[in-house]
């Protein structure tokens, strides 16, 4: 049977599948994304800096980046503990809890947002304990931090879990026969093994937290210069028909997201290289 000689494969459908893939990718993702950059390219440098470096915008960057970093660190610490407990210990209900860890992935962000606000507002379940003690969470920076911690929770757990599961017990046994105590084994042998996946999880949680809107916008209170996150600032500018300002800020966020994406890919390559022992 005569079939067009294809150096790639004898399977048919290459042209069709790749063509459709590229067309769909281009139309849905690449062309709209380029619109942001093209629009900003039309701005003068002076206008661009004015749009992305005004005090209100800088305050929003500080909040978004700062709270995301803090939430990422907390998730790194507690995510490691949760992953460790899920992989190494058994207790009743473990499978349910394991499944529940993915809740922040599955729950719509608006639902998470109003639930967290309700919990931490002054007459909420948690709020009414904390406020008399002087801890205001809702409508402050702390509220943003709590919401971002919720959102990033599964990332570290799910990147560390598989690595922990595949760690061979021989390493720990070898270390113990060489005279290490448990603490030494954990800190000097296991933690460095887990470091690539920990950092990948942190970067994923950080990237997600940076762009998060729905879970944060209810609990933050949205006061300009104080509790306004960058995505909200973009929406506010859109509502005021300041398309250029909104797009300029969006471009800054897009560039940081792409840098993060690159970093995450590199981290994942690093972790794969050291993963096979």
């Amino acid at each position, binding site marked *: 049977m005569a079939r067009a000689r294809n*150096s*790639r*494969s*004898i*399977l*048919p459908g*290459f042209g069709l*599948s*790749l063509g459709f*893939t590229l067309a*769909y*990718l281009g139309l*849905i993702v690449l062309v*709209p*994304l380029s*619109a*942001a950059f093209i629009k900003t390219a039309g701005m003068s440098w002076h206008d661009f800096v004015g749009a992305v470096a005004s005090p209100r915008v800088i305050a929003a960057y500080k909040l978004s980046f700062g709270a995301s970093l803090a939430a990422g660190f907390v998730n790194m610490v*507690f995510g490691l*503990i*949760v992953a*460790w*407990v*899920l992989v190494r210990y058994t207790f009743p209900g473990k499978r349910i*809890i394991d*499944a*529940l860890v*993915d*809740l922040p*992935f*599955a*729950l*719509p962000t*608006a*639902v998470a947002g*109003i639930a*967290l606000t*309700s*919990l931490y507002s002054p007459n909420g*379940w948690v709020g009414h304990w904390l406020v008399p003690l002087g801890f205001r969470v809702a409508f402050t920076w702390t509220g943003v931090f709590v919401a971002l911690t919720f959102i990033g929770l599964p990332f570290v757990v799910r990147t560390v879990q598989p690595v922990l599961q595949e760690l061979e017990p021989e390493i*720990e*046994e070898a270390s*113990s026969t060489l005279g290490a105590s*448990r603490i*030494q084994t954990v800190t000097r042998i296991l933690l460095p093994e887990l470091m690539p996946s920990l950092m990948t999880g942190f970067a994923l949680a950080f990237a997600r937290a940076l*762009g*998060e809107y*729905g879970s944060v916008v*209810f609990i933050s209170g949205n006061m300009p210069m104080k509790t306004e996150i960058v*995505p*909200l600032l*973009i*929406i506010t500018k*859109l509502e005021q028909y300041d*398309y250029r300002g909104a*797009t300029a800020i*969006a471009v800054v966020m*897009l560039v940081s*997201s*792409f840098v993060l*994406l690159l970093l995450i890919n590199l981290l994942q390559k690093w972790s794969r290289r050291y993963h096979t022992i």
Partner: protein
Amino acid sequence: MAPAIATTLSTRTVRSPAHRATRDPAWARWALTAIALAFLAFFLVLPLLVVFAQAFSKGGAYFLAAVREPDALASIRLTLLTVAIAVPANVIFGVAAAWAIAKFRFSGKSLLTTLIDLPFAVSPVISGLIYVLVFGAQGWFGPWLIEHNIRIIFAVPGIILATTFVTFPFVARELIPLMQSQGTDEEYSAVTLGASGWQTFWRVTLPNIRWGLLYGVILCNARAMGEFGAVSVVSGHIRGETNTMPLHVEILYNEYNIAGAFAVASLLALLALATLVLKSLVEWRQTGSA
């Protein structure tokens, strides 16, 4: 001699130094488990409970009334319509992309996979913004669309487009590694036995990837139904017309109709729990048949 050694070995206790360094001490196990459970209870379970508690805070009748109200029903219909279009479109794309990447050799594969992952890295609000830039009144096609009386932004098509963008990678990301790990042997055999391309796909490839495909569909669906930021930007927030369920929740909440907002939110929370259950079942099946 041998029995003596055997006795010694069998009475060796767990407290020998060698064994000590490979097991966490009991106090550490208890402490870590307690910390992990407390953290999860505080951050995961508590918000989930408050959704349902608030939803029923004014009683079951109020809950039903809030959910059956015309605007709420319209938002449910719009959410379902969006999902019915966005998810199948992304499934077709995911399958096509995975077929091209997994079964053929060409350069630029890792660039292509990175590009497919792009929507993951973009903030939802920006996802909506770029569609406003293309189809909005001041956008590239704005004047043309107004001329032809087609409304995309601030209408349903815009919502569907933005949701499609946001859920773009889910199915592809599941299928690409799966099909790559499955290789091309079975497809080659089918072709050498005379199957056409479509036959090969339907009867050889598809059964192999069905659990991965289902997993991707579940994730895609959950994200599509719950998308808030992107839809918020492109929707006109017109009650009863261009509000999805998450937007309707926001409207009710901002009107201080807390019980009503949580009533609709609890439907979404139930969807989330169903997603988790389905996800676990599929994972269990996947590892079972692996």
